């Protein structure tokens, strides 16, 4: 993956702050408490996995961090700056990018155009009303580069709705990566993928710049243990455990939650 991206991230970060910090995040939906006071801090360059059973509030957490949802209470700090009251597009401009659990693509446009829109935003040329879109060589070059990085170079001209599910999932990541973010949120990147596709995705994520801070929601434990520096476990909207993979693996309460689920799965199968 490009060295310039990593260098950019590095030069932008101040080493005093965490890359991302959430403090007492609560989110109510009527009577339902999706997040009941979540706090944690992610260091620059860290790979943090967010795991937990379905309904634990993981995607809600991402939505609050990225700005799609406002929290009922609590604050979000991006590189030391309080972004809680900022709309999602301003957080994106500050270097935060995310993917979505269900593909959130520009279905009627080509693969190339999907990525180009992200590159164009990042390059600050989106407002230009008189230049031809092809004439911006920098944008074109970067678009090609991202397509190459994500293995979509051959598929540039294809309409997104004609892509296979796995390719769409790749594009989902490509759009986020095209913004060259400093903090990247990946929401179940391998959801619905075949083992081969999953391996490719893991390889891709591993190749992202080391300076990039990464949060991944995942269900596939193999992926989690392959990628994560630290794991945060959510359960019913609260942090159940937070630590290095081996510590979390050995945590009895975590085992209980997952054991309970495994036992259920096994009894369903028998």
């Amino acid at each position, binding site marked *: 993956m490009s060295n310039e991206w990593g260098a950019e991230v590095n030069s932008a970060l101040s080493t005093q702050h965490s890359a991302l910090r959430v403090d007492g995040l609560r989110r109510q939906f009527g009577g339902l408490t999706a997040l009941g006071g979540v706090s944690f801090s992610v260091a620059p360059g860290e790979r943090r996995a967010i795991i937990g059973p379905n309904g634990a509030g993981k995607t809600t957490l991402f939505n609050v961090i990225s700005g799609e949802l406002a929290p009922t209470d609590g604050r979000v700090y991006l590189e030391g*700056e*309080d*972004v809680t*009251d900022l709309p999602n597009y*301003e957080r994106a401009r500050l270097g935060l990018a995310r993917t979505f659990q269900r593909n959130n693509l520009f279905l009627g446009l080509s693969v190339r155009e999907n990525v180009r829109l992200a590159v164009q935003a990042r390059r600050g040329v989106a407002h230009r009303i008189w230049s031809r879109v092809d004439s911006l060589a920098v944008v074109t070059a970067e678009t090609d580069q991202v397509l190459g990085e994500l293995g979509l170079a051959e598929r540039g001209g294809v309409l997104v709705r004609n892509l296979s599910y796995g390719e769409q999932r790749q594009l989902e990541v490509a759009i986020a990566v095209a913004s060259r973010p400093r903090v990247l949120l990946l929401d179940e990147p391998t959801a619905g993928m075949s083992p081969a596709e999953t391996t490719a995705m893991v390889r891709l994520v591993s190749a992202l710049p080391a300076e990039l801070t990464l949060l991944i929601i995942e269900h596939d434990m193999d992926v989690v243990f392959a990628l994560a520096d630290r794991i945060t476990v959510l359960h019913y909207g609260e942090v159940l455990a937070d630590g290095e993979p081996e510590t979390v693996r050995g945590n009895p309460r975590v085992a209980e939650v997952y054991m309970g689920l495994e036992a259920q799965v096994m009894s369903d199968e028998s």
Partner: protein
Amino acid sequence: MSRRWSFDALTQRLLAVLLFGLVGWLLLVPLVQLALRSPDTAFIQLLNGLAYSLLIFLIAAGFTLIFGMMDVINLAHGSFYMLGAYFAFTIVGRTGGDNFWLALLLAPLGVALVGVVLELGYLRPVYKRGHLDQVLLTFGFAYVFSDIVRTVWGSDIRSLAYAPALQGAVDILGRPYPKYRFLVIVFGLLMALLLWLVLERTRLGSIVRAGVADPEMVSGLGINITVVFTVVFAVGAALAALSGVIAGPILGMHPGMDFDVLIVALIVVVVGGLGTLSGSFWGSLLIGIADTFGKVLQPDFSMALTFAVMAAVLLLRPAGLFGRKAD
């Protein structure tokens, strides 16, 4: 640690405050003055506003149910109102109001039939295409209906004769008030109550409410959702037509009435919140009473005031008073 306020949010709140201030100054202050100076007039206008609100509610309720349930924006809804009035006009004919009861029954049925044909024949193929296509299609039909009415009944302003039994005045708190309008209020409130009961207490109602919340789930439960759609559409059309019949004697009829009423109904639904019946109810009350007093206190600005109220509400609550943000 820096906290950043969005410039947009601030300007929006400021604008909303300004608009409410404008409405307050132009409407509420004269209203209070009127109430103090001449409480009888104020009271009468309040009743008029109530009657108007309930007429609007019948229309808005149908529109919001259709939207909430089927996700269809039916711009021909005003046409249903208009057709109801004109059908009633034909049924009442020259009998001088004796057939009013018949019209009250048959006109909504006739319009419901029109609605069914429209839904089955034209809307159904277009459901999966999204909002834009429905808007365009129903708009096209509104156009056609408008011209059909003009062709069949002419462009003159007409009024609907109503049953002699309903004429005259009643005593409200010692003051005379037109019996017909009073009955409109009573009937309107009863209809609101009836709608609420049906939605909250019957099986059909719970199906409709579930359908508003999650149409796919409902069809997954084995209920024939398409039949329910047609029923809801027909009922919505009938409600609008009923309102047209009832409004005929008070508001008169003319070929532009479909559109005039559509605008008001849309304002109400937007202010109250799309897809919620209570939103339509309170929205109708707010807009209906504001509009009535507006016409009395500020005849040149009444329309602008109504829009100012709408704009102010939307600035503070973009999804309407009771609305939920679209997923």
